[in-house]
């Protein structure tokens, strides 16, 4: 029979003033299984713990109940006291007689005492059904997978690799760099984006702990924290990177011209191309959608000019498998297509461009020699109208949220315009100027003064064409007048949106995403880089719009999380998880449906001992289960049991009052 020891705490006056502690001890002693009961002033103090340790040995106790403060406070402390005395720490139960009794029934000592006695009785009843539990230790594969090679992915990969943990960096496009590689100078300091990004990209390429897999996508992830296996699809590049020297002869000679996505389609690239001069890896790929050799079997010029024979038209896509322990998702963002703004004539008027197009134009390595030009006639614009919140904060046409970065980059654009075209004038239609950040408001103020840009507070309602000018009409709500600006060029600060395949990616990884398609963090304030699935972390705009400083900060936080996870050779895990008794399992798979973590899989077991016929049963992966108990409650066969919260334990509590 169970031998329970009960220790009731005074907590100085905290408990003793409102609960008759000796009376509780007396009541407790009436319970058959209780072989030892005592009160003490401060149970959590070292002498208090010593009391427990001694009693365990002296009275050969089989479980311990401490009646004191909330288990959320000192459960760990007392568990440790149990293990110090050689007892399994999970044989402890805590009765919360402080938060749940002495502190909340200060006017009725009798009732508080009765309640405290009941709470102890319940804890005793539960502890009788307690079992020895053992921390689960899961082996860890110390290799991280980073998905997406924008600044977020680059930073996370470098930080993890610097801790000498191998990283696999998978990038969808032919080069890493992401959107940052397309930017000119960056707010709030106006450093040149390429100048600060390129060294990091080169570091990625040369880092001994980073394996860069470009032009690839992760297509499958199985396993659980510490023990994932990823399948990566590498697209056919038709260029053998091992032999290619990156000389560029091929793309110089290729006759097929294609709109250049790096320059937002403003100029052309070839069918075989490296996306931009600083690309990493700096090797070309053939765009199968345009290469006439691949499409029609005609051409082959690149293969002829390549001195090292690196071109391989027969190349096939490849599947690469890697075992990893943690994942950082850094798939970045897209920009919203402003087509729904029909009142602005988007799509009809050539001289309306997006901010990223503007960014490419003013970039030194851009398609227009670093100058903004009117797409319609190639002229340098004088009056440029910038319109903010395009698609953002507009639930009618776009999305509800604020894109966070466009106020700042539009400010930057007025400066860049001012630098590049001296006699130009910027007009900015805005609703608010959101410049919360270190040095941001100062940046905005300086820009407003230096450029003398005209700020008009209102949303533009219409753009129409008059001769070769665009007339931009909006209200300046500060003077309550409708204004029309005669513009040469209009720049739309389009909303940041999540990559459109994020939901699919999230489903593949088993993590969640919000109604817009951003990947969801575990807690918006306190766990902003973790996902609800252990071992998967988020960095950069894939979680929400953010600028480069925030992106980098989050990426480094991910790296810290990954390093923390990999700190030991195995991972310790709470043993309060569920297990299936396959004898009882009917294979209904109700549990599979409700598990929020996908921890439950099915397997085939023989019908009976030695039987050849098989039946399906559920199996819970102990590495994945978080111990919520959903499955237990839905299992009609009562085949599942959640350690620490078994039916037996809970029913004991209920009936013991």
């Amino acid at each position, binding site marked *: 029979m169970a031998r329970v020891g009960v220790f009731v705490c005074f907590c100085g006056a905290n408990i003793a003033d409102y609960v008759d502690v000796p009376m509780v001890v007396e009541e407790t002693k009436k319970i058959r299984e209780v072989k030892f009961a005592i009160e003490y002033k401060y149970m959590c103090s070292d002498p208090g713990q010593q009391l427990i340790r001694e009693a365990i040995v002296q009275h050969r106790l089989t479980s311990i109940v401490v009646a004191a403060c909330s288990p*959320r406070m000192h459960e760990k402390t007392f568990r440790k006291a149990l293990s110090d005395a050689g007892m399994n720490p999970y044989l402890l139960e805590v009765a919360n007689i402080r938060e749940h009794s002495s502190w*909340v029934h200060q006017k009725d000592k009798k009732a508080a005492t009765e*309640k405290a006695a009941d709470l102890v009785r*319940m804890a005793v009843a539960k502890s009788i059904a307690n079992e020895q539990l053992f921390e689960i230790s899961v082996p860890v594969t110390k290799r991280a997978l980073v998905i997406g090679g924008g600044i977020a992915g680059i930073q996370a990969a470098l930080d993890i690799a610097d801790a000498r943990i191998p990283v696999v960096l998978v990038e969808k496009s032919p080069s890493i760099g992401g959107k940052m590689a397309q930017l000119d100078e960056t707010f709030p300091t106006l450093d040149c984006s390429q100048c600060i990004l390129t060294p990091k990209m080169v570091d990625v390429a040369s880092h001994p702990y980073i394996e860069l897999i470009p032009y690839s996508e992760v297509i499958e992830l199985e396993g659980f924290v510490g023990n994932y296996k990823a399948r990566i699809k590498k697209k056919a590049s038709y260029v053998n990177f091992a032999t290619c020297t990156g000389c560029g002869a091929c793309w110089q000679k290729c006759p097929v011209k294609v709109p250049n996505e790096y320059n937002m389609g403003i100029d052309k690239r070839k069918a075989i191309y490296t996306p931009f001069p600083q690309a990493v890896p700096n090797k070309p790929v053939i765009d199968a959608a345009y290469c006439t050799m691949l499409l029609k079997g005609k051409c082959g010029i690149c293969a002829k000019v390549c001195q090292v024979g690196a071109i391989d038209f027969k190349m096939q896509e490849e599947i690469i498998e890697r075992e990893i322990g943690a994942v950082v998702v850094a798939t970045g963002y897209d920009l919203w297509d402003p087509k729904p703004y029909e009142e602005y004539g988007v799509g009809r008027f050539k001289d309306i461009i997006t901010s990223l197009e503007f960014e490419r134009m003013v970039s030194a390595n851009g398609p227009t020699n670093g100058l903004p030009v009117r797409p319609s006639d190639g002229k340098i614009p004088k009056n440029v109208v910038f319109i903010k919140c395009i698609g953002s904060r507009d639930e009618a046409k776009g999305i509800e949220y604020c894109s966070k970065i466009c106020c700042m980059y539009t400010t930057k654009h007025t400066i860049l315009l001012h630098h590049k075209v001296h006699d130009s004038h910027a007009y900015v239609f805005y609703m608010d100027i959101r410049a919360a950040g270190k040095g941001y408001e100062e940046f905005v103020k300086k820009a407003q003064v230096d450029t003398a840009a005209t700020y008009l507070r209102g949303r533009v309602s219409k753009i129409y064409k008059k001769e070769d000018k665009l007339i931009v009409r909006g209200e300046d709500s500060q003077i309550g007048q409708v204004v029309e600006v005669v513009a040469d060029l209009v720049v739309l600060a389009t909303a940041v949106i999540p990559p459109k395949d994020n939901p699919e990616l999230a489903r593949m990884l088993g993590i969640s995403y919000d109604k817009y398609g951003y990947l969801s963090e575990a807690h918006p304030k306190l766990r902003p880089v973790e996902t609800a699935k252990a071992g998967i972390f988020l960095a950069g705009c894939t979680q929400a719009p953010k600028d480069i400083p925030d992106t980098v900060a989050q990426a480094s936080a991910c790296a810290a999380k990954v390093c923390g996870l990999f700190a030991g050779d195995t991972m310790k895990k709470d043993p309060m998880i569920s297990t299936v008794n396959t004898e009882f399992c009917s294979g209904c798979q109700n549990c599979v449906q409700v598990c929020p973590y996908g921890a439950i899989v099915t397997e085939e077991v023989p019908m009976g001992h030695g039987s050849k016929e098989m039946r399906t049963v559920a199996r819970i992966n102990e590495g994945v289960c978080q111990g919520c108990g*959903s499955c237990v409650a839905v299992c009609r066969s009562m085949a599942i049991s959640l350690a620490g919260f078994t*039916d037996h334990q809970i029913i004991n509590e209920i009936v013991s009052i």
Partner: protein
Amino acid sequence: METIVKDQHVSIEKPEIAAPPDWEPVIIGILCNWCSYAGSDLTGTSRIQYPPNIRIIRVPCTSRVDPWFLIKALQTTADGVLVSGCHPGDCHYITGNYYARRRFLVTKKLLSFIGFHENRIQFSWVSAAEGPKFAKVVAKVTDDIKKLGPLHLYKKENFEK
């Protein structure tokens, strides 16, 4: 026992069994660890007072709550049960409390179908920060149950403690 079942929400409890003069109801509160249990701790640390009738059982998540627990509680020791968990969307286990909520509604219907007054089992959302709300919920539930009087229906009076 005389039973009049007009519709499924009509209680067949017998009000004529009068409560003993100093009768106090026993209420079992099943709280999820992450929100409501933490909230109830906060009620304590804030010293907010509430009626002493509730006996709290901690579970990881309201989704762990088997309808059987509720039935067992009403059959044995309790005059009423409160199940409380995280607000929708805030579940520590992502979706746990959605399942719990659905299951709870069905259970409640079932229990009132077999004759329990629907106020005997109640559900609430209390977050870890809502100490005052927890006190309010407990006060309301206690009040409701007091009005209903002791529960005799289906009680195993000969239960050994």
